[in-house]
Every structure is written in structure tokens, then in C-alpha cells.
């Protein structure tokens, strides 16, 4: 079937998926135009765009003309979100490719990327992506000690020494990692055997 390229108002740096034939496709494969904060436009299958509850509601409310502006999302982040939708929307929860995508997605994401993804997924109301990114953050900090978590999140300790001691005291009783050998001598911790503060 011959397909015609659609004349789309493309700006520099727009995502590759914008350049697709659309004229011969049925209404079920309608495209939605999304505009990032920089003004870059992304042409996305309506099916995928509905991966965002916010966008889905706007479409249902009759927002059909022009581009949907997303002033809270930058182009690089929107590009990643669209990638996520393409691998997940319409697929089953146990889809192997989707899970493989998630694994790679999380593995390569820096903490600043994760931050941006979380803010975008929250704004766009895309719960599965929000869960994925939040789980990645939780996994990153799970084995960190208190100082490391403070550094990761940029949090300053504002406890007074007395307050801090009181909180630590509550943990002391049961959080003693076992580092004693059979004959009672203390050993240094094996790698991975984290001693709690």
C-alpha cells in the first residue's frame, strides 16, 4: 500500500518517530503531537501517548487541534518517556522485551536522569514509569549508610547531637551485625556485610 509522508511542522532535533507515514493509516493509529518545554515537537501514536493519563484525558476532552504543550518536560526526557511507552503500552506485564528494556533503562540512568524521569512521569501521570524509576532509586540507596544517603539526596543533617543520639539509640539493640568468630574474637567485616551506624 502506498504511503504518503505527512507534512509535519518539524523543528531541529525532533525525535525520529515524527517522520512516519500517517495518511494511509486508520483512525485507530492517529498521531498526537506533543511539544516539549523548548518547543520541540514529537509525533507519537495516540496509543502510546495514552500511556500518560494526563494526555489521555486531554484527548478525551476533545483536545485534537495542534500540539499538546508539556511545559514541564524537556525534549531529552520526553524522548525517553516516549521510548518507554513504545515498549510498554499495549504489552502484557510479563512481556520479555519490556522487562529487558526496563533493565537497560534503569541500568544506564544517572541519578539526574532518574530525577527528571520521576518528575515527568508524575506530571504526565504515568504510574508504571514512576514506579520503575522510584524502584531504581530505592534499589540505589538500599545498602547505603546514612552519610551516603545524605550525599545522594543532598540532605543536610539538622539534628542536634542529642536528637541524633536518641534516634540512633532506638536502633542499637537489634541492629548489631554479627562479626564475632566462634572463639569470641572480633573479625573485620567481609565485603558486603554492612555494619549499621
Amino acid at each position: 500500500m502506498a504511503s504518503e509522508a505527512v507534512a509535519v511542522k518539524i523543528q531541529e532535533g525532533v525525535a525520529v518517530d515524527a517522520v512516519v507515514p500517517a495518511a494511509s493509516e486508520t483512525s485507530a493509529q492517529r498521531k498526537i503531537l506533543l511539544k516539549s518545554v523548548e518547543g520541540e515537537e514529537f509525533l507519537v501514536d495516540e496509543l502510546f501517548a495514552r500511556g500518560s493519563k494526563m494526555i489521555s484525558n486531554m484527548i478525551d476532552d476533545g483536545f485534537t487541534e495542534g500540539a499538546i504543550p508539556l511545559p514541564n518536560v524537556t525534549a531529552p526526557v520526553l524522548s525517553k518517556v516516549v521510548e518507554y511507552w513504545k515498549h510498554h503500552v499495549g504489552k502484557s506485564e510479563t512481556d520479555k522485551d519490556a522487562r529487558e528494556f526496563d533493565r537497560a533503562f534503569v541500568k544506564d540512568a544517572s541519578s539526574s536522569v532518574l530525577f527528571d524521569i520521576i518528575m515527568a512521569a508524575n506530571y504526565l501521570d504515568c504510574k508504571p514509569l514512576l514506579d520503575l524509576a522510584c524502584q531504581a532509586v530505592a534499589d540505589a540507596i538500599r545498602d547505603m549508610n546514612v552519610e551516603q544517603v545524605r550525599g545522594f539526596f543532598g540532605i543536610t543533617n539538622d539534628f542536634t547531637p542529642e536528637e541524633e543520639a536518641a534516634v540512633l539509640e532506638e536502633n542499637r539493640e537489634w541492629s548489631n551485625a554479627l562479626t564475632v568468630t566462634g572463639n569470641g574474637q572480633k573479625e573485620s567485616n567481609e565485603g558486603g556485610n554492612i555494619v549499621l551506624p
Partner: protein
Amino acid sequence: MDATSFPWELLPSSIHEEILSKLPISVLLRLRSISRSFLSSIRSLPPSLPFPRDPFFLLFSSSSSPCSISSAIVFQPSRNRWLSMPLPSFPATASGPLILLSNSLFNPFSGTPTPIPPHLPMRTLIYPLSLIIDDDATTHRSRLRIVVVSTSDRIRSQIYDSASGSWTLRGELPGRVHMLGNAIVLNGSLYVLSFGPDHLLKFDLLSSDWEIVSEVVPSVDCAHLVAFGGRLFLVAGVADLLGGMLSVKVWEFDWEDWKLVCSMPDEIFSEFSGMKILKHFHVCDGKGMVCFYSYSGNVLLILDLMNWRWWWPRKCPLQWHSHPFLGVAVEPNAEFLR
């Protein structure tokens, strides 16, 4: 706020909750000392959130004397590490964060005991069957029930209910049994195996009625019942005529029959039995993780019912060869975060 590529304080509190609720409670307890607002965020997490499972297995007494105990040697699967926890006396059973001792409840995370009134006298030896904790999400209060039994010419049970603060004699099943195994809670009832005769029994916690659910049970040794995901499993060893274990298997009771669902792989069984004749092993479980221990192999093994994976825990730094096996699992309560 210090420079970071992940500024926590710029996130809305709903996102704080999303991230924190994906951490085990034991980690959240540690992170309380980060800052005042972080502590406040942790304290305001609704306890009903689905925190990741994080059981702690109290496996051995730290003292080799069978009469005294002051602390337990504990394994925490989520961190693959060993620690010690206070324990003032030998545990009977446990649920959630609480351990049932001879005349009190003990929370090893807070170190605080709660006395319970003595049970009503019964003619023969009484032993505890189960501790049941029901958390009321709306009132944030826990209802505790303890079921103890005596077996002579019949099974007689007694229940303690924290709602009334007292014990009542309720429930009876005629017929002699040689022994009862461990009890599990499923769908508002207790299930327990009897030995001699080998039956699956059920005690309805609401009506206090005992009944025999199944008169047929696989012919096994070292039987242990496990409840997980609304399903009832039997974990046990299959022995030859001389009592030497040939394998360890898991059956599921589908409310009619026992179906074999899993067997310990041969190479794992060889290592578990320590290349010796295995006559006995201990089992305990928590949140779908089943812990196996054999004194003859001096080795610990875990089966995770969530993915049917067998794995070897990191070796314990302590030699426990002569230490009594305890076999209870506890998990910190989200209420504890407050």
C-alpha cells in the same frame, strides 16, 4: 541543601512516599537519622503500604546451653547477613514483630516484653499452637490472639484474645493424636498436621470448631506446613525404610489432594546432607522463604516460594554446632516507624 543531582527536597511528598515505601522497614528504621524532615517523612508513611517483605530468621540460641538463652543468632535473607538479637527465653512461635515466649510476648526490634495473663489450667501438658495478629488499618490497633492446645484423649484448645484480655476454653476434637505439628493461618483458620494418625486438621478461629480436612497426608518425615499467597504447602523429607532421607519435597494442598510441586535438586540435596545419611533436618519459614537446616551437614539452605529458587545463605561467622535450633521468623512492623 547540598549540591546533588538528585535533590530530594525538590520532590513532592507523594514521591517521597513512593520511593520510601519500596524500601524494607529495617532500612527505613536506619534512615530515620538522616534529618528531621526525613524522619518526619518516614514517620508519616501509612503502615498499610505494601513494604517489601523482610523476614528475620531467629535460628539459633547464642548459648550452647539448652537451658539458658539471652540472645539469638539471626539470619536476614534480604541483606544476606547475620546478626544477633536479644531474646530473654526460648520462643514458642512468632508472628509479625512479636515472639511468643512462655508467659509473655517479646518484640526483639524494640526489646520490650508484653506480659500476658496465664492460661487456664488443663489436665494434660499444654503447648502453644499459634500467635495471630490482625492489624486494623483504620484504628491502627492490633488484635492479638494466642491458641494453645492440650492433647490427651482429645484435642482441647484455649484462646487468648487481646480484645477481652482473657483466655477462654473453646474448641475440642475427639480422638487421640500422638503429636501436632506447626500451625499456619490461612483464610481465618488454623491448619495443623496431626501425627499418629496423620491428618490435616483445621481450627476455625471464628467458630472455634475443629475438623479433619484431610485424612490422607503424604508419608513423610520432618513435615512443616507453610502458608504463602493464599496457598497451603507441605515441606518435608521422603525417607527410606531405615529413616534415611532420600529427598526433600514440597506439596501443595489444593483442598482435595496433595500435589507435588517442587523437589530439592539432587546436587543441592547432596550438599545439604553433607554426604552423610540425613536422618533429620529443621525447617522454618517467613514471607514465602523456607529455611532448611541440617546439623549433620552444618549448613543452611533457603527455598524462595515466590520464584521457586534455591539458594545458599552466606556462611555464619559463628559455629553453632551444639546450639539449640529456634526456628522462628519475625518481621518489623510498619507501626514501628512512628
